[in-house]
């Protein structure tokens, strides 16, 4: 498994370039950057698993939807994803399908130091490319 990311200097928001050997690793890496943007704290509470099933017409919308789902759990359930346990991305009938299991936990907002409020995952400059055996894209979070 191999992926890396680079935070881009952006005047207003959080932007990063991410690269991975496999498409599903690109999604895992992006989720990891999302996680690190929210908080450096590891949450001590018991881990729970959530299953995600998302279908979209394009890979970019799929990635935005995936990260938006994590953001939604965080914003409205005070549930923070800590790691992606499994993730499968396939194309069928001109549609992209994502199935993932993510591990995370509920957290107390008064006990965890939160770094940023990510309003939304944007489509800004997002273009998932495959070149020379690597997948890459830029991701920008509106904060």
């Amino acid at each position, binding site marked *: 498994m191999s992926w890396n990311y680079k*935070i881009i*200097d*952006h*005047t*207003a928001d*959080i932007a990063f370039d991410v690269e991975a050997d496999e498409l599903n690793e690109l999604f895992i890496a992006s989720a990891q950057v999302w996680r690190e943007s929210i908080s450096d704290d590891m949450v001590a509470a018991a881990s729970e698993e959530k299953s995600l099933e998302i279908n979209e*017409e394009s890979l*970019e*919308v799929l990635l*935005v*939807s995936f990260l*938006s789902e994590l953001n*939604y759990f965080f*914003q*409205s359930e*005070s549930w923070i994803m800590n790691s992606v346990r499994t993730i499968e991305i396939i194309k069928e009938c001109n549609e992209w399908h994502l199935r993932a299991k993510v591990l995370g936990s509920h957290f107390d*907002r008064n006990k965890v*130091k*939160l*770094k*940023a*409020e990510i*309003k*939304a*995952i*944007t*489509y*800004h400059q997002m273009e998932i490319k495959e070149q020379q055996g690597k997948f890459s894209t830029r991701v*920008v979070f*509106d*904060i």
Partner: protein
Amino acid sequence: MIINEIELKQLSPNLWEIPRTGDMNVPGRIYISQKMIERSLQNDQALQQVINVAHLPGIQKYSLAMPDIHWGYGFPIGGVAATDLDEGVISPGGVGYDINCGVRLATTLLEYDFVKDKIESLISNLFQNIPTGVGAHGAIKKLSPKEMKQVLTKGSVWAIENNLGNSSDIDFTEESGTLKNADPDSVSQRAIERGVDQVGTLGSGNHFCEVDIVEEIYDEKIANVFGLFPNQIVVQIHTGSRGLGYQICDDYLKTILKASNAYGYNLPDKQLACAPIKSKEGKDYLSAMQAAANFAWNNRQVIMHLAKKSFLQTFKMSESVLGFNLVYDVCHNIAKIEEHNINDELKNVCVHRKGATRAFPPGSKLIPTKYREVGQPVLIPGDMGRYSFVAVGTEKAMHETFGSSCHGAGRNLSRTKAMKDAKGRNLLEELHKRGVVIQASGYKTIAEEMPDAYKDVSEVVNVMHEEGITKKVAKLRPIGVIKG
């Protein structure tokens, strides 16, 4: 002048035109000084975005940008575009994620000398009463689904009905704090869940509640009409529709991206995704956006009530002595149906303002009777160390910019650079030396939001003033601020 291979024709000292070429439906027009062009316009894609917006179906007259122009998602920040109702489109990117992010200004009868020894106590009370920061919640009780529906329909009126303000506050809010065609049923359950606990909260980032002193008056007559006097203590509140608005934008960007493809729009930027205003997608977005706008007005109304409560707590005086009074509330991320003169014909158009403020002239029936002789107050906040401005709308704005003006300064440094710059500095001490008391949810916020991280708002305001789009009325200097 050529910037990033784009031709800019100078029409007046601070007005530049990008001639219509290729598939542009209209020319681009940017209000900006030459100095600002040379300093910052080549650094990002904002000019290209003005050109991109000019491709929108049904766009009228010009694709406009105010002098606080900078790179946004699809539309530039500072962008204004009006589209024909029958043949034109509505674009969520032309409103932004923070639907009805806006500013409200309230005055008091207090002067600086009276409050100066109690600023810290006042700021502390504001910080206690108004939830700020990431995930801020719990200012008032969590709303039931029925109550949420009422907030989304009624806007500020909900707050008034729940004793969180005076009925006269409605008159001094843009659109009277309620857009009438809002439809809560077009708002997703997710958006409701994100907003239900956030009424009366400030949020984080560049949102704030700030106590200012009226430092300079430029137009005494208009200042008097607005209720402003020298050394007066006033309050600015800057926030928007919180998680509800962000989710609505998210939901509808997805829907409208699909619709944009289905309608065969070939736009230069995916984030300009749009749908005909009269289509189901367009109508649904408009009514959901209006619901978010109502939520934001209600939010600022509740926060103002909490700010007033903080003043009364600190100074232990009666309401009549405090004289806490709303001057005006403006939105700067919105799309509204307004009547404008297009080629000598009055017609309704959909005006998108993304990081731009309505600036209606004297005589407009859409501004409070009290202000009709002078024009609409235009509130332009700066950073927390320098100044903000109150200006007034003009007939020229109505004629040239669909009655629109700038909204603020825009950032100068990224958050990362600001954090780096802040290392080794004692920002609290620096702000204290400028006479500003700050309370924030963390030092990181103070570093990211420090004055150096922002451009100088006076440059932006002066461009609008020199072009006669809005005229300066007063300058406000911060003396205390709370941030998330």
